[in-house]
């Protein structure tokens, strides 16, 4: 069964572009919060057109790591280079301008604001000429409804407050937004955690689509099957350190799952879930 999963796929992997230069490279990143050591030296890179999965146990430091990548945290130690140039993000806006779009685990949405306003937050399209330049609200509303529909969500209306959306609807807004402002690197922190089956399959298909367009994707998930379905490379974190990186095909789902559990033994479920949870 597991073989089936890694081989029998409709996605076209196979060009891991080993030769291609990484878009972004993180070296020996450390991050401390007061006396808490969240990252103790992690290295990672993303190449154009690949989906690099970041896996690991709860609390391993995945979110903290991608937050240093998208300019939210400043690393305590370590270097970030983009296209070979050393980079120092002062704010998430800097990272965005360098072409990094992120779906954060907490989604970074403003509950009191409407879906449309959240969708375009920070990158509002304008119309009209100078003194009366204003947001193109009509276009914004249309785009939002349209992009959400592509992800499988039919909004009641684009002016509903995000705070009143269901968990999965909200997550879809965040994903649709990041994909829409398509960039050079797309970071997805557990994007499918709250999604229904239909929405999940849309997101996985979307990852595949943007990857084919040459975008580098960083995909965090706890679902081994999702990771194997779209991942080209797999890096596993454990307790703030890298456990190792594997190429697609070099690792079985069971091995990967063991790595993700941090090497600790699992509860007595193996059989019932067909090897992977």
């Amino acid at each position, binding site marked *: 069964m597991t073989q089936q999963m890694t081989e029998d796929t409709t996605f076209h992997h196979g060009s891991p572009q080993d030769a291609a230069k990484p878009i972004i490279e993180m070296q020996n990143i450390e991050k401390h919060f007061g006396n808490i050591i969240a990252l103790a030296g992690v290295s990672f890179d993303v190449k154009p057109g690949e989906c690099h999965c970041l896996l690991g146990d709860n609390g391993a430091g995945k979110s903290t790591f991608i937050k240093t990548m*998208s300019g*939210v945290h400043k690393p305590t130690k370590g270097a970030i280079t983009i296209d070979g140039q050393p980079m120092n993000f002062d*704010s*998430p*806006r800097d990272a*965005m301008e360098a072409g990094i779009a*992120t779906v*954060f685990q*907490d*989604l*970074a*949405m*403003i*509950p*009191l*604001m409407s879906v449309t*306003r*959240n969708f*375009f*937050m*920070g*990158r*509002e399209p*304008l119309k009209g000429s100078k003194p009366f*330049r*204003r*947001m193109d*609200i009509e276009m914004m509303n249309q785009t939002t*409804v349209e992009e959400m*529909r*592509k992800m*499988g969500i*039919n*909004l*009641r*209306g684009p002016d509903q407050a995000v705070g009143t959306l269901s968990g999965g609807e909200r997550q879809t807004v965040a994903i649709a937004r990041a994909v829409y402002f398509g960039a050079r690197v797309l970071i997805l922190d557990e994007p499918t955690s709250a999604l229904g089956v*239909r929405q999940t399959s*849309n997101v996985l298909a979307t990852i595949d689509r943007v990857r084919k367009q040459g975008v580098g994707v960083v995909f965090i998930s706890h679902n081994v099957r999702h990771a194997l379905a779209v991942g080209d490379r797999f890096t596993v974190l454990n307790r703030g350190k890298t456990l190792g990186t594997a190429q697609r095909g070099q690792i079985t789902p069971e091995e990967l799952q063991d790595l993700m559990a941090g090497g600790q033994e699992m509860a007595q479920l193996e059989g019932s879930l067909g090897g992977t949870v």
Partner: protein
Amino acid sequence: MADTAQTVTDERLKQEGFGARLMKRPELGAIAGVILVTTFFLITADSTMFTLSGIMNFMTPAAQLGILAIGAAMLMIGGEFDLSIGSMVAFAGLIFGACVVTLGLPLILAIPLTLAVAAGLGAVNGVIVLKTGLPSFIVTLAFLFILRGASLVGLKLASGGSTQLRGVRDAIEGDWLAPMFSGDAFGPIFAWLAQIGLIDTFKNGTPKVPGVPVEILWFIALALVATYVLLRTPQGNWIFASGGDRNAASNSGVPVRKVKISLFMVTALCGALVAIITVMDAGSTDARRGFMKEFEAIIAAVIGGCLLTGGYGSAIGAFFGAIIFGMVTIGLTYTDFDQDWFQIFLGGMLLIAVLFNNYIRKRVTGER
């Protein structure tokens, strides 16, 4: 892709009337309060209150408060407070007075200078708040004291010992910019209206209302501009976002720092504008100008539906909030109630106006 027609007839939506949709806007709730208060005074107050001159009379202090309230509302939507605006009115008044009287500058220099000083101080407030991460409440509170104290010291210097600096009216006499910031606008129109009998006149033939006090025009203009900015520009979107959730906004690429510092500057500018208008109107300034105005401005903004926690509210709401507040403070004088009851009455009216506003909104939107 999966797709169903996304039309207005989603079966998961109940029909709702036009009125209901209107009432969902925060500012329109405040109108209910205005109507209530107006009705109350129509019944209890002397009929002169709602003559043209009576309306101008309560609108003048309402407008002065309202200019501050709009600034305060924008800042509150952006998630911060400025407790120093009242003191800013005194301090900017001093700067302006000193420029005009002591230094003898023309308005074309004095006004930009005053505004620049105010904006600078607003920026200082903002930078301290953002650099240190301290709550703006405490930082601007320190400036409340500092600016108030500085006004006193500065006034004594500028006037040679008195707490009042006077002679502004003489100094600006004939300055071409003066009509922009003082006196009444549309004078000729009102004179004409009086001639044809549409406005009451005094015995000597001058109209009882010589025009629209300029602060009312500034107030309306500011409310419109602020509303436009909040609802129709990216900057407005950023203000809501910064106030709604600072981290989320910043993570989504909103330049939160810039937004907040600009808001502190805008608020300070509103304070300076009020200072310029009132100093030119009164012809003098003293150390107690603007006393407690910071709280009144916040009150007006909250009556108008702004959330203290940020991220929600409107400039139009603050506009009506200021009018409610102005009407209630001045209105009692038109009634026969014992004036000792003034504060009880003020508090009661405020409470009833907000409760009513809230009740109406809940009824209409069906919130539980």
